[in-house]
């Protein structure tokens, strides 16, 4: 191998080339990474210092995160405090509103008296009574005839009497009748008829047989042989005073049979074959025929016309039938021999008596024309006429006068009417009334007047407890004011909300408003820190208790509540100030730390660019720049406001 001998010049070039190659490699590396110091071998001090600076920056970044959490916790507490303050101020407004509303009101109760134990009987119906007691009872109808018998054998000598065979006489009492047939031929009688006048039947026997048959047939009439000898008189008589008896003839000898018996002219009738005997009344006979007597009530009138004609009355029975069939609603009856008209009921009112002409009916029956018989009440009737009941309400007096005159009270109905009128005259909500037993109730129409009863009538009639002592208005149980009750309920609701808010003011598990403490570390080895103490800001912690029901009705209680609220608000505001200053300390540190991190990171990078000469030159340039820079200007202005000004 031949040695290549290098000349010094070539060696020098080679060295320079090697240096250049190294330099090139280094420059390339630097260009690629942008760093002058790429590894510990380039510049160990700078490299390791830079590394430690970057590590420190990373540590501080983590620290910054925890400082941020601390800040958030403080802010959560701050928000909670603001909200609680709002709630407490609302509670204050509520309590003040309650204070302005009036306290419980005791309503006044109007004076009132009510009677108990009264026993006023119901009104009795009106009774119009005739004052003359001489209307005799009716006399039963009677008709007397003379039978010409001839001879003294008392034979019913029908041949002599020329009564043909088959002649009938029918006896009727208006309800039932019986027909008797003369069987003079002895050949039997028609169906249903009773045979009489057979040969040898004496008058007495005939009469006995006829009466027996009349009784069996329930015809209310009997025959009597009056004088029993000679020219016999027989009498046809009604069994009672209300029936008219009709005797009619029929058959072959009808035209003459009644005449033969002497009965053709008894009573009244159209002819000799048809006669009716009627009851009579002596008294009523005395009344001029055609007169009428009318009894009128509010319902209508009942009239009777006296006389013997059709539709007229001549007996008690006819009189009662005519009147009771009228429209007055009154009931007519004889009490002994006195005619009485009784109203339908107490409410039917008065009965008025009138006549059309003449006065004989009135004087016979004992009524006075126009006489008014009024409904009555036994109890009120017992009160002496002219006695009074006075009702005084608040100094004004109304009077009820008892009696039978105009505007006087004699019945329960009149009493109630008068009380209703008194109630209307007092007006308003006055009550003046009596119940069905007559218990009197009087209530004043306002709360001012006292109620006093008086008068000359015995007060115990209208209630055994009534007396003349005045009854004054009273006060009822107090009623709670509604506005205060609502304010009280609002206050309690707000306190509940305060407690819930305090419980919600947590962040990251820490609640400064519920006694949790917060510690924030400012450097990596935990030697610099700040501890913030928590407080208890729920309702109990603030010294606020909910109000018992009805407590706000008393002013003293509301005042106590307001004082409590005031103290709580002051406590909260003080604490808010403390938290606020804590927050600003922490935020200061936080800001400083984050800027510091940037500085460290920059420093870490810059370190590897150290160059003494460059630095000196840079500093000179910086010095010149700073003379005009805004930083220097702001520094100057800040220094101006500082105490340095004093020192200058």
């Amino acid at each position, binding site marked *: 191998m031949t040695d290549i001998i290098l000349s010094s010049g070539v060696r020098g070039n080679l060295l320079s080339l090697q240096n250049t190659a190294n330099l090139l490699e280094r420059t390339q590396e630097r260009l690629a990474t942008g760093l002058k110091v790429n590894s510990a071998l380039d510049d160990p001090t700078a490299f390791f210092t830079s590394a430690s600076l970057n590590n420190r920056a990373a540590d501080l970044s983590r620290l910054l995160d925890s400082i941020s959490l601390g800040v958030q916790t403080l802010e959560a507490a701050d928000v909670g405090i603001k909200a609680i303050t709002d709630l407490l101020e609302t509670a204050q407004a509520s309590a003040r509103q309650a204070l302005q509303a009036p306290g419980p009101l005791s309503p006044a109760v109007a004076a009132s008296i009510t009677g108990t134990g009264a026993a006023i009987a119901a009104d009795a119906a009106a009774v119009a009574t005739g004052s003359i007691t001489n209307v005799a009872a009716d006399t039963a109808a009677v008709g007397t005839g003379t039978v010409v018998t001839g001879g003294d054998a008392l034979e019913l000598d029908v041949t002599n009497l020329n009564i043909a065979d088959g002649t009938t006489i029918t006896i009727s009492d208006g309800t039932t009748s019986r027909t008797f047939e003369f069987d003079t031929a002895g050949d039997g009688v028609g169906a249903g008829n009773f045979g009489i006048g057979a040969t040898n039947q004496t008058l007495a026997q005939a009469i006995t047989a006829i009466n027996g048959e009349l009784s069996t047939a329930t015809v209310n009439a009997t025959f009597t042989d009056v004088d029993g000898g000679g020219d016999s008189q027989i009498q046809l008589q009604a069994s009672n005073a209300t029936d008219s008896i009709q005797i009619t003839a029929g058959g072959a000898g009808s035209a003459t049979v009644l005449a033969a018996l002497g009965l053709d002219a008894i009573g009244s009738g159209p002819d000799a074959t048809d006669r009716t005997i009627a009851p009579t009344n002596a008294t009523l006979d005395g009344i001029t025929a055609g007169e009428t007597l009318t009894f009128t009530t509010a319902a209508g009138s009942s009239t009777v016309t006296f006389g013997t004609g059709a539709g007229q009355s001549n007996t008690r029975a006819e009189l009662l039938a005519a009147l009771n069939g009228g429209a007055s609603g009154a009931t007519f009856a004889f009490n002994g021999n006195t005619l009485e008209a009784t109203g339908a009921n107490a409410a039917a009112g008065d009965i008025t008596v009138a006549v059309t002409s003449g006065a004989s009916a009135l004087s016979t029956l004992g009524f006075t024309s126009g006489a008014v018989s009024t409904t009555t009440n036994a109890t009120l009737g017992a009160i002496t006429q002219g006695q009074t009941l006075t009702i005084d309400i608040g100094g004004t007096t109304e009077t009820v006068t008892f009696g039978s005159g105009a505007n006087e009270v004699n019945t329960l109905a009149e009493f109630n009417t008068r009380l209703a009128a008194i109630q209307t005259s007092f007006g308003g909500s006055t009550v003046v009334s009596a119940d069905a037993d007559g218990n009197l109730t009087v209530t004043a129409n306002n709360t001012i007047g006292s109620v006093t009863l008086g008068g000359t009538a015995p007060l115990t009639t209208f209630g055994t407890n009534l007396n003349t002592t005045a009854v004054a208005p009273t006060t009822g149980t107090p009623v709670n004011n509604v506005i205060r009750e609502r304010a009280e309920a609002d206050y309690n609701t707000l306190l509940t909300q305060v407690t819930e808010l305090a419980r919600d003011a947590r962040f990251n598990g820490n609640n400064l408003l519920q006694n949790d403490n917060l510690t924030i570390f400012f450097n990596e080895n935990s030697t610099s820190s700040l501890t913030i103490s928590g407080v208890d800001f729920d309702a109990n912690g603030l010294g606020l208790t909910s109000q018992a029901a009805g407590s706000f009705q008393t002013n003293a209680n509301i005042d106590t509540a307001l004082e409590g609220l005031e103290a709580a608000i002051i406590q909260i505001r003080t604490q808010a100030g403390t938290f606020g200053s804590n927050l600003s300390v922490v*935020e200061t540190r936080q800001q400083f*730390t984050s800027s510091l991190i940037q*500085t460290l990171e*920059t*420093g870490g990078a810059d370190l590897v660019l150290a160059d003494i000469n460059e630095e*000196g030159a*840079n*500093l000179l340039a910086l010095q010149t720049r700073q003379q005009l820079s805004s930083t220097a200007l702001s*520094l100057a202005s800040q220094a101006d406001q500082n105490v340095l000004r004093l020192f200058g």
Partner: protein
Amino acid sequence: MALKVELKPGERFILGDSVITNDDQRTKLFIEGTVPILRSKDIMRMEDADTPCKKIYLAVQMMYLAKDPKLHHSTYFKLISDVQNAAPSLFPHIDNLNNEILTGAYYKGLKIVKAMISDEEELLNNALGRTGI
């Protein structure tokens, strides 16, 4: 522990936001409390702060004296980053200074800035060609 301050006649010092001037007698004062205190030899006036690091001293001084140091933070960081960009070798000082400020030990911070100032002076002299030996 109280701070002992010895004042020559006519010497002044800052206490909080007041300036206290001594009369014409030597005086010894013992001061306790957390209010910032600066003796006159430690005070940098605005007119004297003509280099970047001196300006940093002024900024730290104002942070120390202020009620709300936050106001001065942005100025401070601007100055720091300018110096850092210009002279990265001063970074260890800056690092220590930041630590002291972070933990609230402003007075110690001022001492560090004083060291920075003397280093800076060296660099400036170097650049200006005044090597001094």
